[in-house]
């Protein structure tokens, strides 16, 4: 079940194109949501006017509008990648709204109207009622939950003040564009170029919002930064944009996502995340993603096409990507590190769960340009149902990068015999001093393990959860504590009903 391939010659751009193909039903979801559109939105379709509308709505400076328009024109010349493996209908880009997310809300009168299945999962995750209402989009819930989360507005304020005192800038990207234009201009699109791939270009043209973090030289960010705080105050966009800049000797840990199953009326999600770390700087970027995966028959579900890249620009800089992916119908995602600095370090820790008809194609690229740069890749794929789970990873060592080291461990765990797991490593080494190690295993949860755990008193689902969490431990332990606990519960919930 594991195909191991080593390609001596491969083009990153080509891999990108290969690795991204999306198509979505233009039709709305059929989840019994009542979605009334409250306020203004851009006309359906995507033209230069749409881009101008978005930029205007955000009061952006002229340079930003020009940047978006350039991206839009480029996007128009690009081909939507055609991924033969995925048999979904094409997305009609003209039959979608591009400025709707912050305004158009799915509103429920009360939690009673929520899909009982989702309600059950919220309860299982132990999410307080107030927060459930926000996640579900209950009318008028926002204020309640913000209060519940922050206890009071003053908590939020003191949180901001503490960051400010440390000199850390933590803002929405729209605010940052207005307030710190020089910083944003210097780095936006520098790590993931506009032309990088079709979805990145689209994101550049129409991104609605996202996060900006700047950590000045020598500063250790005094707390974990989480979009959680922001998500409760605003709806996440369909095209998110994140930029994190860590100056010399600084440190920041950023948490993205939410364990609750987030639903969104937008089927296509195409985020771009750019990170840059200067000399001796370290960025830890953790993601728990649980977009709606579609129902058990594979209907509905989010298509998640994300471009995430980190530039380890400085000597001894370090970036760690840790991700737990359980959601989305289709996931294409390759958080990558470009290791330019000498002695720079890139790490990728990933757990990807697929169940039912989900498809995940994720992995990483470690591009070694700096001498003595090192990378570690730990990928744990868990497949159940009729799903397909692929690890695709590139390790490239440039000709001048001497003494590079990489260690890659890819483990796949199968539940049942109708799912698939694939490991596709690409290794390109142009410097003979490199040491590259790759290990891959594929295993099944054995009946012996299940019976052993059940004989000790665990129910079947508890037993599966325990075994799966053990399998994923090397990744979960990289997550910040509070996230790790939630991620464990999430793994269990994602695999419910997959055995027996």
């Amino acid at each position: 079940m594991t195909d191991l391939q080593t390609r001596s010659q491969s083009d990153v751009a080509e891999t990108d194109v290969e690795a991204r193909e999306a198509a979505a039903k233009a039709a709305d979801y059929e989840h019994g949501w009542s979605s009334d559109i409250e306020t203004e939105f851009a006309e359906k379709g995507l033209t230069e006017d749409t881009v101008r509308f978005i930029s205007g709505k955000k009061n952006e400076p002229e340079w930003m509008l020009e940047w978006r328009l350039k991206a839009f024109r480029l996007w128009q010349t690009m081909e939507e990648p055609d991924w033969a493996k995925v048999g979904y209908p094409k997305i009609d880009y003209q039959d979608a709204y591009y400025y709707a997310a912050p305004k158009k809300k799915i509103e429920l009168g009360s939690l009673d109207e929520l899909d009982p299945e989702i309600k059950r999962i919220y309860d299982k995750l132990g999410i307080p009622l107030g927060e459930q209402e926000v996640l579900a989009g209950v009318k008028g819930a926002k204020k309640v939950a913000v209060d519940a989360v922050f206890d009071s507005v003053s908590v939020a304020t003191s949180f901001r003040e503490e960051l400010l005192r440390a000199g850390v800038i933590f803002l929405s990207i729209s605010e940052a564009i207005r307030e710190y234009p020089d910083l944003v201009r210097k780095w936006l699109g520098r790590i993931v170029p506009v032309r990088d791939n079709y979805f990145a270009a689209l994101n550049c043209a129409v991104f609605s919002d996202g996060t900006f973090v700047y950590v000045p030289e020598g500063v250790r960010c005094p707390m974990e930064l989480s979009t959680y705080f922001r998500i409760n105050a605003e709806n996440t966009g369909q095209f998110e944009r994140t930029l994190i800049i860590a100056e010399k000797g600084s440190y920041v840990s950023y948490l993205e996502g939410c364990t609750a199953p987030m639903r969104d009326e937008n089927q296509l999600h195409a985020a771009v995340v750019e990170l840059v770390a200067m000399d001796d700087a370290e960025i830890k970027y953790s993601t728990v993603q649980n977009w709606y995966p579609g129902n058990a028959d594979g209907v509905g579900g989010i298509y998640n096409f994300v471009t995430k890249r980190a530039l380890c620009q400085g000597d001894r800089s370090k970036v760690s990507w840790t991700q737990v992916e359980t959601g989305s119908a289709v996931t294409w995602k390759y958080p990558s590190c470009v290791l330019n600095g000498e002695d720079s370090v890139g790490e990728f820790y990933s757990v990807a769960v697929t169940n039912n008809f989900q498809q995940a194609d994720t992995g990483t690229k470690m591009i070694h340009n700096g001498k003595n740069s090192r990378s570690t890749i730990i990928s744990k794929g868990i497949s159940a149902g009729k799903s397909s789970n692929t690890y695709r990873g590139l390790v490239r060592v440039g000709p001048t990068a001497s003494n590079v080291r990489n260690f890659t461990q890819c483990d796949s765990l199968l539940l049942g015999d109708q799912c698939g797991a694939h490991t596709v490593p690409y290794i390109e080494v142009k410097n003979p001093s490199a040491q590259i190690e790759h290990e891959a295993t594929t295993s099944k949860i054995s009946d012996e393990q299940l019976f052993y755990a059940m004989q000790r008193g665990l129910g079947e689902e508890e037993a599966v959860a325990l075994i799966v969490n053990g399998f994923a431990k090397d990744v979960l332990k990289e997550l910040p504590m509070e996230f790790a606990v939630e991620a464990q519960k999430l793994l269990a919930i994602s695999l419910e009903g997959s055995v027996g």
Partner: protein
Amino acid sequence: MLEITNLHATVGGPDKPTPILKGLTLHVPAGEIHAIMGPNGAGKSTLANVLGGKPGYEVTAGSVTFNGQDLLALDPHERAAAGLFLGFQYPVEIPGVSNVQFLREALNSQRRQRGEEPLSGGEFLKLAKDKAALLQMDMDMLKRQVNVGFSGGEKKRAEMVQMGILNPAFAVLDETDSGLDIDALRIVGAGINSIMRSPDKAVLLITHYQRLLDVVRPDKVSVLADGRIVETGGPELALRLEAEGYDTVMADG
């Protein structure tokens, strides 16, 4: 306490079911330690698995009642919560899960099923320490992954620590003595006595060797051959088996 009556069971699935237990009858009252001996392939481990409810083992006739309850109607974890413990002949590895985590979750799951309050982390650790000490097992072993990298003897000793923590009413111990050196055997035997010797508990002790029975003195000894109990007697039966072998003893009737 446990009444097995005319039990028939097959393995191998519906396509090619192989009968292994062929009308096995055995009653074990509370307070009894009952040794089961018998040749390889007789069906001893099969009996343990059928009692535990392992998938793949099909009961085709007969009944098992446990404290008056139909044991065969319960799921494996419900049997555990009802007080049944299997000491496995080949304990299973669970990578990435520590013994402490495993046992705490298992115990609390049992307690939940019985409507009891779960133990806190502190309470559980105290209990685990006590039982590890009873089996003279280093607490560090319990912090390691379940059975991963354990020697054969360590696995068996760990099984008994598990039994101590879970504190079952009825234990089926499948060749718990195999793989143990002399000292370990004595420690494990003393552990079994300490945990299970009680008027309201009982043990099915599957073994090939008298040396375990010298430490854990059985009240009764039965011989299981070809899927049935063919002979039952007192402790002296085990001594005869050891001296003369199964063939002679069974031929004598």
